[in-house]
């Protein structure tokens, strides 16, 4: 947020040979392309980059692989090659400063496609966030695979310089640097070069307490630069998208582009569970449904609600939106929550402090947005604090508590062990999938990425719409292949929270 009124700077438009324009595999897209291209190429480039971004999303959100890990990288590169996007694979595999024609062509396409997608993704906040998240993943991946001489070239080309701290300062602070910086014990921290940057340039490091802070500055070792750069890159993208959005009006004058740009992400968004469900779930059956068809996270919340007659904000949100997604009407919802809450409070208090938010979630109050139920990624990454029981049980519970709970539900010993095993390894969604199979006595091995998906699959199974197939066979349901867009539809910022005093 910058209030300074800057003079409009006119960057000199670079025209010239490809070698001059594209000296490096990795760039920060500061200068837009100016050549003419055919409509056909425009469309092709857009779709190819979309495939690339999609592939990244699949790796992170669907497959649940840890970003930038070996398996993640392998998956992404493999997928790119399968999809025929060799030039992107080339750019991602080992960024450098080669001058082969193939390199130059790849960089040119990368450059143009990035700017085209800016137009397609600047329209709404959700689209912007998705796009920025993917472009950031791409940038980091390419930075990490850069050869070391290329790193220096990259810094030079982008005028990146940081305050190198003096040896004196470093010695003075060495005790603190040593205990606060994250590094391998095999490395010798005394030899690291440290740079002083403002703390908000390296939020990733600050968040995880991996860096020493003093007076608003973070002391970042050279190896952690990626953090600084991605913060800057993210800011740059946000700013650029805001500008692109302002120019959308002009661009949309061109009919040839409008439908392409509008349709691009659409063609691709998975199910977000906010369209009118054909099925209406009667609230009376909620108890039995919670046992038969709810994912563990929701079953847990339901049980807590029934026993304590209350849920804290996080729980109400997560569970409330889920219920909406499975087809509980607003009237039934209000009745359900009211029934439980008034067991420990006056009707009056419920109406004033809680009913509003329920209606808000259904889009009947405030900005009247129809909020989407949270997907697994969002739930797994949620904050869970004292007194809460929302979040993902495979992430936010202790193994013993989880084990006992599952045994208490009557699940088979081996199944329980498998689930807890997966949980210990950090594979929450796979654990959930195993929970699904255990509860339904199947071996479907579904890729779970949304609680409402879990519910739907369960209902389909129970109604005999899909056959329970043994593990070895291929997955029967195509929904799983579609990536669940990580739409952060609901910002906690947006809700006027009733602060319970």
């Amino acid at each position, binding site marked *: 947020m910058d209030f300074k009124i800057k003079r409009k700077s006119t960057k000199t438009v670079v025209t010239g040979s490809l070698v001059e324009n594209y000296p490096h595999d990795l760039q920060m897209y500061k200068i837009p392309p100016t050549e003419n291209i055919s409509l056909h190429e425009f469309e092709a480039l857009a779709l190819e980059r979309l495939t690339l971004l999609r592939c990244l999303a699949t790796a992170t959100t669907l497959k649940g692989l840890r970003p930038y890990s070996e398996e993640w990288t392998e998956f992404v590169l493999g997928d790119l090659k399968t999809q025929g996007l060799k030039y992107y694979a080339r750019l991602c595999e080992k960024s450098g400063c080669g001058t082969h024609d193939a390199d130059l062509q790849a960089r040119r396409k990368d450059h143009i496609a990035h700017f085209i997608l800016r137009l397609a993704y600047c329209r709404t906040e959700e689209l912007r966030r998705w796009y920025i998240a993917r472009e950031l993943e791409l940038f980091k991946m390419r930075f990490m695979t850069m050869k070391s001489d290329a790193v220096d070239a990259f810094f030079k080309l982008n005028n990146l310089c940081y305050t190198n701290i003096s040896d004196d300062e470093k010695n003075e602070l060495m005790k603190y640097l040593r205990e606060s910086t994250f590094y391998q014990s095999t490395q010798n921290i005394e030899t690291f070069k440290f740079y002083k940057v403002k703390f908000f340039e390296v939020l990733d490091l600050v968040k995880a307490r991996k860096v020493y802070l003093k007076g608003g500055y973070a002391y970042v070792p050279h190896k952690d630069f990626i953090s600084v750069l991605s913060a800057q890159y993210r800011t740059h993208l946000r700013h650029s998208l805001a500008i692109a959005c302002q120019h959308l009006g002009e661009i949309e004058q061109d009919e040839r582009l409008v439908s392409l740009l509008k349709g691009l992400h659409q063609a691709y968004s998975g199910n977000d569970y906010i369209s009118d469900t054909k099925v209406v779930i009667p609230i009376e059956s909620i108890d039995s449904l919670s046992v038969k068809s709810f994912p563990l996270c929701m079953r847990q919340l339901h049980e807590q609600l029934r026993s304590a007659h209350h849920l804290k904000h996080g729980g109400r949100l997560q569970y409330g939106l889920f219920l909406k997604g499975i087809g509980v009407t607003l009237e039934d919802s209000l009745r359900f929550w009211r029934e439980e809450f008034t067991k420990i409070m006056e009707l009056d208090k419920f109406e004033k402090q809680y009913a509003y938010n329920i209606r808000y979630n259904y889009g009947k109050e405030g900005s009247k947005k129809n909020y989407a139920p949270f997907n697994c990624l969002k739930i797994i990454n949620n*904050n869970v604090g004292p007194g809460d029981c929302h979040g993902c049980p495979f992430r936010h519970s202790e193994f013993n508590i989880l084990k006992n709970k599952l045994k208490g539900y009557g699940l088979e010993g081996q199944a329980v062990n498998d689930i807890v095993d997966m949980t210990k390894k950090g594979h929450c969604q796979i654990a959930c999938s195993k929970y699904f199979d255990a509860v339904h006595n199947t071996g479907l091995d579904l890729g779970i990425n949304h609680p409402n998906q879990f519910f739907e699959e369960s209902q389909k199974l129970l109604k005999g719409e899909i056959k329970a197939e043994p593990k070895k066979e291929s997955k029967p349901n195509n929904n799983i292949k579609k990536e669940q867009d990580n739409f952060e539809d609901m910002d906690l910022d947006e809700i006027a929270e009733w602060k319970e005093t």
Partner: protein
Amino acid sequence: MAEQHDENLLPEMLPLYYTRHFPQNIFCRWLACGSNPKPLSNRELSFTLADDVYLRYLSINDQKEFQTLLQKKCPQKLDIGAVYNIKPSIGRHDAVVLARELVFDIDLTDYDEVRTCCQQAKVCDKCWKFMVVACEIIHTALQDDFGFQNILWVFSGRRGVHCWVSDYEARTLDSPGRAAVADYLCLITGGENLNKKVHLTNDLHSSIRRSLTIIDKYFEEILQDQEFISSTEGLKSFLKMIPDEALKTLVEGNLERMHKSSLERWDGFVNTYSQYCKENINAIRKMKYLIEEIKIQYCYPRLDVNVTKGFNHLLKSPFSIHPKTGKVSVVFKPEQAKSLKLEEIPTIYSLLDDGAPDNVQHQSNMRVAVKNFQELVFSLEKAEAIRRKNDANASILEF
């Protein structure tokens, strides 16, 4: 101890309170300064009137308008929101947030699982000590680590504290920035399904070491007040924090035999643990910082991170009156937190009733609180003036 008061008297008393005691002038200057470079009128305020009528998207141009609005509406609750790109009354849902103070909310109900003296809405001078520790830890971190200068601490009216950081960099910090600060400060994670909520690894970060030094200043006192591990239940919860079964059994055996005093039991635990670690080199790998983790789980500040992360949460204003307790949300200096006594906090009843026994003391404390507020606002205004001058110079140089 405060007498039971009558909430029904509030509608009559509030207008008097707002006119005679609420520091309107300083309040408007604080908000105006924090709204810079936008005008005061771009700042959202919200009122809750009698019968829970809630008014959002209010704004004022100056103190005079504020005074009129207060008299006219007589709000029971007064909340402060963010600075928008246009007047909130015009923009409403579509207005874009530009800035807002970086805020923290610490509530004693989040300590219910550790405090034994009180639960839920109840609060006493014993559990207030948790707030003293919290203030010191957070205040030091905000100053030393993040370089913030303008930090306002406010009693929240019943059982907690709020913190408002008005530095320019804090006000303009975006959502990921606020999330990062919140996460940096947050050491206790996990809900009802997690017994052990603190996990420290590798080397202790300097800020964690510093926080432990602060906790150590108060730990024995709090331990004696709260007697965490004296009761059977308390001991059980304590044992659940020990990840090693063998050690857990050993500690259980030793402590159960001992006298109920938590202080003695704690020393017993420390000895058992040290001895165990000497005899089992492997154990230390898993539990290198067990003692520290436990101290933190008992005493470290429990922030409501969602309040910090969202920058258009509406938060209660300093000097509001809490409708249930009648207490004034006074501004206090963090170094004086330990001398704050709950029944010495001014209430609307004692302030307006010359005959009340604590009238004199409360009036005096109110003056101190207003003075604290004033000092902070003055220094904020000075800092803002310097910043604007530097910016102006810098842009001249840019030519």
